[in-house]
């Protein structure tokens, strides 16, 4: 091999070109190996992100649960880590979160499902091509803008018709959050409805059904898994939403189902502590990791269920 590299000038033509090709091939192969290594390292980043999230949340929560029992955390009905006497019952935060997400869910399901039925069953192609992007703009507006909208526009309107004691109330925040997640419900539900084969519709029309009957008795039942999945995914989004509830729903942990009251969600609590003067490493600071872990587990479960339904029930026809 080595002798070939020092080929004499007179017979160098073919040999030299063979050597050059062999080197080029080796270089190409080496380049691919280096690139593959780099690509693998990049792929590892997303794996490590998950590991990092779980490790951080679990480690700090572990420190928290050494001082506060899990039982007290999960069943306590009073949340007051920032005041004396301290109380670490997370139920008021969960109640506030679910109340806000529930209101958002009602709004989003009503509007989103109606919009999906209109777009899939009624709207002419031209109209749909205009309306869909407009609705999807709703999902792209920053949440801080929605928070401002809830506080400065919707809350005063609600206050003028309902007995709302303080400016912060979960109804306004929840309704605006519903507007935000509505396109999620309508887009995913519409996808599910469009996938319903036209034979099913034709059959119903042939029997003399009206459009409404076809939509509600044929299309919606057939697309139900997709609709349910869209709803679950949208709810999970609402549970993790931070800015709207921080701005418009208040900062009072409150075990209530009254939508006119001020509450605090898990996300809003995390923001409150991280903006305050709480020194790192203290028990109060560790609460955000325990609450964060709970939030992570709730949204993860819902996302897994939602995506499982989508996967399980698509392309069945």
């Amino acid at each position, binding site marked *: 091999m080595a002798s070939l590299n020092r080929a004499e000038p007179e017979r160098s033509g073919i040999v030299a070109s063979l050597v050059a090709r062999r080197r080029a091939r080796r270089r190409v192969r080496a380049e691919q190996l280096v690139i593959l290594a780099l*690509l693998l390292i990049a792929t590892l980043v997303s794996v490590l992100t998950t590991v990092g999230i779980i490790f951080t949340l679990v480690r700090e929560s572990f420190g928290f649960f050494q001082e506060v029992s899990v039982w007290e955390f999960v069943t306590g009905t009073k949340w007051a880590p920032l005041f004396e006497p301290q109380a670490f019952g997370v139920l008021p935060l969960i109640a506030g979160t679910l109340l806000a997400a529930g209101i958002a869910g009602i709004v989003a399901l009503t509007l989103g499902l109606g919009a999906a039925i209109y777009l899939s069953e009624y709207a002419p192609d031209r109209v749909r091509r205009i309306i869909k992007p407009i609705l999807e703009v709703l999902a792209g507006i920053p949440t801080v803008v929605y928070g401002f909208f809830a506080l400065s526009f919707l809350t005063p309107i609600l206050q003028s018709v309902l007995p709302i004691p303080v400016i912060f109330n979960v109804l306004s925040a929840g309704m605006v959050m519903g507007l935000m997640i509505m396109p999620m419900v309508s887009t995913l539900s519409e996808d599910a409805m469009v996938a319903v084969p036209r034979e099913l519709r034709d059959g119903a029309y042939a029997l003399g059904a009206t459009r409404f009957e076809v939509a509600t008795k044929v299309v919606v039942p057939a697309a139900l898994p997709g609709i349910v999945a869209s709803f679950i995914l949208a709810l999970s989004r609402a549970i993790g939403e931070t800015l709207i509830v921080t701005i418009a729903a208040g900062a009072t942990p409150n075990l209530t189902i009254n939508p006119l009251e001020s509450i605090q969600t898990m996300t809003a609590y*995390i923001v409150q502590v991280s903006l305050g003067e709480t020194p790192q490493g203290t028990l109060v600071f560790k609460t955000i990791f325990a609450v964060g872990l709970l939030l992570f587990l709730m949204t993860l479960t819902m996302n897994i269920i939602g995506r499982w339904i989508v996967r399980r029930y698509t392309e069945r026809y």
Partner: protein
Amino acid sequence: MERQQAPLGSARVTSQIAASVTRPRYSGPTPPVGSATARSPWRRWRDRFFFLLFFASVAIGIFGLAALVIDVLTDGLGTLDFSFINSYPSRHAGESGIRAALFGTIWITVGTAAFAIPIGVATAIYLEEFAPDHWSTRLVQLNIANLAGVPSIIYGILGLALFVQAFALDRSVLAGSLTMTLLILPIVIIVSQEAIKAVPNEFRDAAFALGANRWQVVKTVVLPQAIPGIMSGIILALSRAVGEAAPMLMISSLVFLTFIPSSPGDRFTVLPVQIFNWVSLPQPGFQAVASAGIIVLLAVLLSMNSIAIWIRNRYQKRY
């Protein structure tokens, strides 16, 4: 003209329908709303009523969007002028400006792009072109889908614990950019994968047939075809980062910055954090200042989205 169609319900038709992956949208002859198909007046009336109801949900959505835009414009347009863009925040509403936040947003966006684009595109190339069909690959893919659904505030907690504290980056531009990178990475990966998937396999086969190895195929054939799609997807992902407030609130905290960051190690604030700050101030004048800030934020997002759509339309190929 097409050949005569096979009779409906014949084996060929049904198998064609079963084979089609993406179904054409239903567009057959359907009776108009409230038509004579329904003989009973009650059913006809119900049909009309619900048509209006379904249409109303679309209308409410659009009305909500319009109300939001009008609310922001009427509150903020009076405050929005050059001195607002060019001033630092102030105790006095009339003198407050958005300069620090605007430049902070530019810093964070550029920093996020610098990390997220190479890592995200590389991951997408690996998953689409190199990864074996193996359970570990499917696990990575599942993991990315799950990360895309993690609430943004969780990324704030991670960034605070990891970058600000463990890496001792303090509340710097670098810490903020890295946190945002992790937040938008799943989106960047997913949109890049979509763009790579859209390149037809014939292109790859042709390059392989010429003796190219996998990386050469990716470098010379797949990437040049996929780049417009990747670009427009990445701009949309970055616009998500521009509007995201929760993790930035935790990393930058509410600061009263009267300087522009001059290096990645400096403290920073971004548009949504500055807006949140103004929204939570009780003094009346700051509502208008917050609205003016929102107009600036929406203008930035609108231009980013327009660029993305322009790229997509300009370079979109149909095979």
